[in-house]
C-alpha cells in the first residue's frame, strides 16, 4: 500500500508562448504522502501545479495519476479522476455563497453523486463553513476563505490535492490551524502536494521535499536530509 504511486511527473517541459517555464521537471508522490515543493518566487512551482491540474498543457513529458495518463487532459476530465487544485491566493467565488462555492467543487457529473457525503465531511472538518453557508464568499475572513478553498477542493472526493501557497497572507495562528486540518485530511488517505514559501512549516509536515530553482528540480529528499545551506542556495544562489 505505501508503495503505490499516486502521482508521477517525468521529463516535464512547459512553455508560455516562447518562454520556457519548466525544464525536465520530475516529481513523485506515494499514496498517502505529503510532498512539499519549495523554491523562490518564479521558480515554476505554481506552473507545475497548474500543469498537473490541467490548466496548462505541457510541451513535453508525462504526468501519471493512479495509473492513468493525464497530461494534456482538460480539467473537466482530470477532476473526476481524483485531482483537485487549491489555487494560490484562495480565489474563492466572491459573489457565490459559501454553500454554492462548495457545490462548485463537485461540478463535474461524476463527482455529483457523492456531493452530500462530501459536504457533511467538510462541515465537520470546518464547522465555521457550516455556520456561514448562506453568506457570500467575499464576506469571509482570509482564513475562512482559505478553509473554503480547501473545502471546495475536497468536494470532488479527490485522491490527490494540490495546495498552492495556502499560508499566503494569513496570521500565524490561522496557518497553524489550517496545517492541522491538512494533516487530518492526509490521515484519511488523501495524498497532498504542497507548494509553499513558508519553508520551515512545509518541511515539518512533509514526508518528502523537492527544491525548485529557475524551472528545474535541483534537489529531492527527506526533509531532515535537506540542510539549511542547500535551501539558502536554492533561494539566493549562495
Amino acid at each position: 500500500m505505501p508503495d503505490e504511486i499516486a502521482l508521477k511527473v517525468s521529463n516535464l517541459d512547459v512553455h508560455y508562448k516562447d518562454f520556457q517555464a519548466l525544464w525536465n521537471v520530475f516529481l513523485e508522490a506515494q499514496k498517502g504522502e505529503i510532498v512539499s515543493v519549495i523554491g523562490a518566487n518564479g521558480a515554476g512551482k505554481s506552473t507545475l501545479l497548474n500543469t498537473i491540474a490541467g490548466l496548462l498543457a505541457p510541451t513535453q513529458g508525462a504526468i501519471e495519476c493512479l495509473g492513468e495518463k493525464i497530461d494534456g487532459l482538460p480539467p473537466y476530465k482530470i477532476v473526476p479522476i481524483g485531482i483537485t487544485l487549491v489555487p494560490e491566493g484562495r480565489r474563492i467565488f466572491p459573489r457565490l455563497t459559501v454553500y454554492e462555492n462548495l457545490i462548485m467543487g463537485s461540478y463535474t457529473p461524476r463527482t455529483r453523486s457523492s456531493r452530500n457525503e462530501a459536504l457533511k465531511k467538510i462541515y465537520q472538518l470546518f464547522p465555521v463553513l457550516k455556520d456561514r453557508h448562506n453568506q457570500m464568499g467575499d464576506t469571509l475572513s482570509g482564513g475562512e476563505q482559505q478553509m473554503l478553498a480547501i473545502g471546495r477542493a475536497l468536494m470532488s472526493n479527490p485522491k490527490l490535492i494540490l495546495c498552492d501557497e495556502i499560508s499566503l497572507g494569513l496570521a500565524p495562528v490561522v496557518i497553524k490551524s489550517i496545517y492541522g486540518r491538512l494533516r487530518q485530511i492526509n490521515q484519511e488517505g488523501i495524498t497532498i502536494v504542497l507548494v509553499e514559501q513558508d519553508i520551515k512549516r512545509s518541511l515539518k509536515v512533509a514526508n518528502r521535499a523537492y527544491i525548485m530553482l529557475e524551472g528545474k528540480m535541483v534537489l529531492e529528499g527527506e526533509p531532515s536530509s535537506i540542510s539549511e545551506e542547500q535551501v539558502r542556495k536554492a533561494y539566493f544562489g549562495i
Partner: protein
Amino acid sequence: MVKYKWPILGVLFVGFATVPVWGSEYVLLFCLLYCLYLAMSQMWNLLAGYTSLLSLGQQAFIGFSGYAVAVLTNYYGVYIWLSVLIGGFFSVLLALFMSLFIFRMRGIYFAIGTWIFAEMLLLWFSNWKYVKYGTGLFIKPPHPPSMTTIYYASLIMGAGATAAIYIILRSKIGLGLMAMRDDEDVSEAMGVEIFRSKLFCFMVGSFITGLTAGVLYVFQIFIQPYKAFAIDWTVILVFIVIIGGIGTIEGPIVGTFIYVLLSQWLAEYAHISLLLLGIIAITIILLAPTGIMGTLHQKTGFAILSPRRL
C-alpha cells in the same frame, strides 16, 4: 419579500397580459417596447454579465434576423410569424459562423470582433441589390397582424427571455456560469467546460435576440441597414444592463423600464436627448457602481428572481 415572489410575479404578468383590455393605445405601445427591450437586454446580460462575452455586436443579430423576416415575407410570401421563427434560426447560424472567428479572442478583442461583424453586415446589406441597397425594405405581409397580436408576441419574448435566463441559471450549468462570472480560471479548474458554456450562451443569446428583432420589425414595418445594423442598439442594451445591474436578473427588468420611460420623455428634447441619457448613466454608475438592483441587493439583500440555491 421572497416569500411573495410568485404572487408578485403572477400579478405583474397578469397585469401585462391584460394591457390590451385596460390600457390606452399609448400604454400598449409603452409595454410593447418595454417587452422587446427587456428580451434583448436580458440576453446581453446573459452574455456580458455571466459568461464575460462582452458583445458589442448584438445589432448584427437584430439586423440579420430583421432582414430575414423582410425578405421571407416580401419575396417568398412566408407566413409572418413563421418568418420571425426562421429569422431566429438565421440569427443562430450567423452566431455559429461568427464564433469560428471571435471565439479565439478574449475580452476587449472579442468586443471589437463582434462589432466588426456587425459593420461588415451593414456594408454588405447597404450594397446589396437584392435588399434594395440602403433604401431598405417594407415588411408587407398579406394579412398584417393587429397591434394586439404584435403586443402578445412581444410579451412572449420579454417574459420568455426572463424565464429562459432564470431557468438557465438555476440549471446544472447555471452555477458554472455564475462561477465563470466570478473567476474564469478557477471555474475551469473546478471542471467547468468554458468553451462549451460560452458557445451555448452565445447561441441562446443570438436566438432570442433574433426572434425579438423579428417581432420588432413586424411592428416597425420598415427595415433599413443604417438603422438595423447600427451600434446604437448595443449602446442602448449596455445602458439598460449597466444602470439596472449587470449579472442580476432583476437589473434589466428595472433598467429597461427606466430606459423606455426616459426615451419617451426625452423625445421632446431630441436635440439633447443623448447628452441627458449620458449624464443619467454616469450619475447612476457613480452612485451605484453595480447598478440599481446590484446595489440594492448588496445593501438590503433584496432579490426576487435570485438563482440562489439552498
